[in-house]
């Protein structure tokens, strides 16, 4: 099908439309979704880790009640992941402002994208960190029940796991330092 004057005889697809697709959603939506994902995914990760650890800890403590108090450290490592999420989402929600007349500038779009991806990074990293620490914490509780000297050694593995959540927090903060609305 040829249009007037086109020597190639067919129409090109309008790739410019592809570049405009991310702009069909308003920057308010991007920023708010990022804020919500930061807290929601972090809490899911923390909860998942806590129930994995808690179930094994309580089962093992039936025969060895002494492991009960020491292994709460694993639960606290999982909880820390949720704390990271809430701190970051409070920081992001402080950046949300009204832009007069919804006349968004390029800087507003940039801020929306930055907060969306910052929240997604923080939430995703905290989600996997919580699950990882939970699984290792469960194994740690059961190993501690059999040999008390193993507790501190397997705690080292848990510390490696909890570093993953910190990576997400660092990148989330650095990405959104220059994001501001209005």
């Amino acid at each position, binding site marked *: 099908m040829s249009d007037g004057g086109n020597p190639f005889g067919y129409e090109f697809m309008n790739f*410019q439309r592809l570049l405009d697709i991310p702009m069909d959603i308003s920057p308010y939506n991007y920023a708010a979704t990022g804020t919500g994902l930061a807290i929601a995914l972090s809490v899911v990760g923390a909860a998942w880790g806590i129930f994995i650890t808690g179930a094994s800890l309580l089962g093992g403590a039936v025969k060895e009640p002494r492991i009960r108090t020491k292994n709460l450290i694993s639960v606290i490592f999982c909880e820390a992941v949720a704390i990271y999420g809430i701190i970051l989402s409070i920081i992001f929600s402080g950046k949300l402002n009204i832009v007069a007349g919804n006349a968004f500038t390029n800087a507003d779009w940039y801020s929306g994208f930055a907060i969306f*991806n910052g929240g997604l*990074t923080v939430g995703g990293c905290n989600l996997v960190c919580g699950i990882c620490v939970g699984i*290792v914490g469960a194994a740690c509780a059961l190993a501690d029940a059999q040999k008390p000297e193993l507790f501190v050694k397997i705690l080292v593995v848990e510390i490696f796991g909890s570093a993953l959540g910190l990576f997400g927090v660092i990148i989330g903060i650095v*990405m959104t330092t*220059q994001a501001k609305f209005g």
Partner: protein
Amino acid sequence: MADITYETCPTSAPFFGFMGVTAALCFANIGAAYGTAKSGVGISSMGVMNPQLVMRNIIPVVMAGVLGIYGLIVAVIIQGAITTPDNTGATVYSSFTGYAHLSAGLCCGLSGLAAGMAIGIVGDAGVRAVGQQERLFVGMILIAEALGLYGLIVALILSQQSYDCSANGAR
């Protein structure tokens, strides 16, 4: 001549750059978490029979953690190159750079995910085997780490590609 023009620096360009940052860190962390958790469970089981070997067998956990560091390195490099709109309000960050950063993030992240899964499964089997046969220790030093390193190298090369829409048209 059909005149088709595309904006070199559209407003949506930073979206792809930021998705590269997220992909790099989140996928690499999934791999690192899988490797850490799977190996950690193996170490705990092995430690019940052989407590003195636990600290030597932390190696798979360390190597899985390094994959998270690779993701962090690429994420920091990419997000440092995503420029804000300049003071006239025009976007300086081009789609070309955005797509390059997205591909760099995906390279590092998905390679880290694959390497982490390999390290987890081999590390779990390896530490359980070393608990029973100590001569297997050298065989457990994981070649799978190199997979994540390949992803990091390609991501670093890709992240060097950039084009700026600044006033003098500099690269």
